[in-house]
């Protein structure tokens, strides 16, 4: 039982589990905690889930400076992962930690996120490197933020399938129904299509309620082997990392191979399904990183939950809403819950909560959760399949 197999592979692998998972005490608007403080605060809470102290940690990962994280947490890790490909980096950290734990490079790995996205406490000014491909060929054209870059491929998608702007509004409407059950969500109001369509225009066809708010927050995960976990004093049953996948496609949305489908979604999810030995039919609960309302449309199709061009109708039908067949983004998503800038950690946290049975918007009987991240505005993707032990 404490093992998993990869199709076509004779090896059996040791089971890796999440024994700690927590967000920072406060999320949303947190003007008196630094980015590092948000990360460390959440790490201590996550360690507490497993009765662990910093001295028990020998591996760390994060998108902040890992040496600073090591110093501040008070550990001297023999495994450190500073992979940063944008908001899905934490999915990649989970994948790398699984490999490190299986190979004996580390025994207890803490993956940390902290970002003062809104208040910018203890955060460097946002700088752009104008020598990169994006700096030379995208950024000079009045791109004020992700809302005017990540969103650009959307019209190609809507045009291809003969859809109008309300395809985006329905994503926000569906997720607002989950957010209404989440006391920590920044946006908690149940929305109608009219509410969304009448909200402030940001970047046509995107209204403000189809764009993530910018917030402050932190979150951490503690991973170890199932064998070690068995000897720990755990607050919650371990959550198994059943499969993972990642793909780095490139620089960003204008460089996508296909504006209507994201290769890194397709390939990272396929590898996660394969390594978990599961198909879409095995998934009870889904998180798709949604910085903007078009991303779940791409995700549902690229992961194979629906056919091409069908995602909007699927969401509109209520299938992803409370009571639907495929509960998706049950924390309200980045659109409603919180979006610090690199949201992936919060998608993972909700996946863990649903497997533990502790989400404020708990879906009954969740045994498996698929968590799909995107980073760098259609630049990279990471996928993690979680299941009960």
């Amino acid at each position, binding site marked *: 039982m404490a093992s998993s197999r990869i199709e076509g592979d004779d090896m059996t692998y040791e089971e890796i589990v999440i024994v700690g998972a927590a967000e920072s005490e406060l999320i949303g608007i947190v003007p008196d905690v630094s980015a590092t403080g948000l990360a460390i605060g959440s790490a201590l809470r996550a360690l507490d889930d497993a009765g662990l102290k910093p001295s028990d940690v020998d591996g760390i990962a994060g998108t902040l400076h890992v040496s600073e994280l090591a110093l501040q947490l008070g550990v001297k890790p023999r495994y450190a992962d500073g992979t940063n490909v944008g908001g899905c980096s934490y999915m990649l950290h989970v994948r790398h930690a699984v490999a490190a734990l299986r190979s004996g490079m580390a025994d207890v790995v803490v993956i940390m996120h902290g970002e003062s996205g809104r208040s910018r406490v203890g955060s460097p000014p946002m700088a752009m490197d104008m020598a990169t491909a994006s700096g030379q*060929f995208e950024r*000079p054209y009045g791109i004020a933020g992700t809302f*005017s870059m990540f969103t650009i491929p959307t019209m190609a998608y809507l045009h291809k399938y003969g859809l109008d702007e309300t395809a985006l509004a329905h994503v926000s409407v569906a997720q607002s129904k989950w957010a209404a059950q989440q006391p920590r969500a920044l946006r908690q109001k149940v929305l109608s299509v009219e509410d969304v369509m009448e909200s402030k225009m940001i970047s046509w066809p995107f209204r403000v309620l189809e764009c993530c708010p910018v917030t402050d927050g932190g979150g951490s995960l503690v991973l170890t082997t199932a064998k070690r976990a068995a000897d720990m004093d755990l607050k919650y049953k371990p959550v198994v990392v059943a499969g993972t996948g990642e793909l780095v496609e490139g620089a960003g949305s204008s460089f996508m191979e296909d504006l209507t489908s994201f290769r890194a979604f397709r390939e990272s999810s396929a590898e996660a399904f394969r390594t978990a030995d599961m198909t879409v039919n095995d998934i009870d609960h889904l998180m798709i990183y949604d910085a903007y309302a078009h991303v779940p449309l791409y995700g549902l199709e690229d992961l194979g939950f629906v056919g091409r061009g069908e995602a909007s109708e699927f969401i509109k039908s209520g299938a992803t809403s409370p009571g639907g067949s495929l509960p998706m983004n049950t924390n309200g998503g980045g659109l409603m819950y919180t979006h610090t800038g690199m949201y992936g950690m919060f998608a993972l946290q909700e996946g863990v909560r649903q497997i533990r049975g502790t989400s404020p918007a708990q879906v009954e009987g969740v045994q498996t959760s698929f968590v799909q991240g995107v980073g760098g505005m259609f630049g990279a993707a990471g996928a993690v399949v979680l299941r009960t032990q």
Partner: protein
Amino acid sequence: MSGKLLPNPTPETRIYWEKTALNELWMPYCQTDGWVFPPRFHCPTCASTEFEWRQLSGRGTIASFIITHRGGAGYQDEVPYFIILVDLEEGPRLVGNLYGVPVEPTAVEVGMPVEVFFELRDGIHLPQWRPAGSKVTI
């Protein structure tokens, strides 16, 4: 100074920006695998470094677009404005702004033909776009 962001050309892209200064659009071309964009010193498919630069027609179609209501650096007084993706006739895709049409969603559509013109910004010539046949410049 316009206050707008400027590309920082690198040795890999030097010829691209030298050619735009002549109001021309050029990119590296591999005999085996075709256009290489963004420009670099090798073909990402076959790794050849023996390829030539070729001129493109400057004609293309709108592949996707947004109308942003929040201006980027130096663009604050121009909102709302188009940011578009152009699929060039020859294949590569470029980002740019669209001029010469009313700034309304109904004024453009995916597939609409456009042509390049060049904006001189603080010493650098940037490819920009207008409807095919239009004489608009900025």
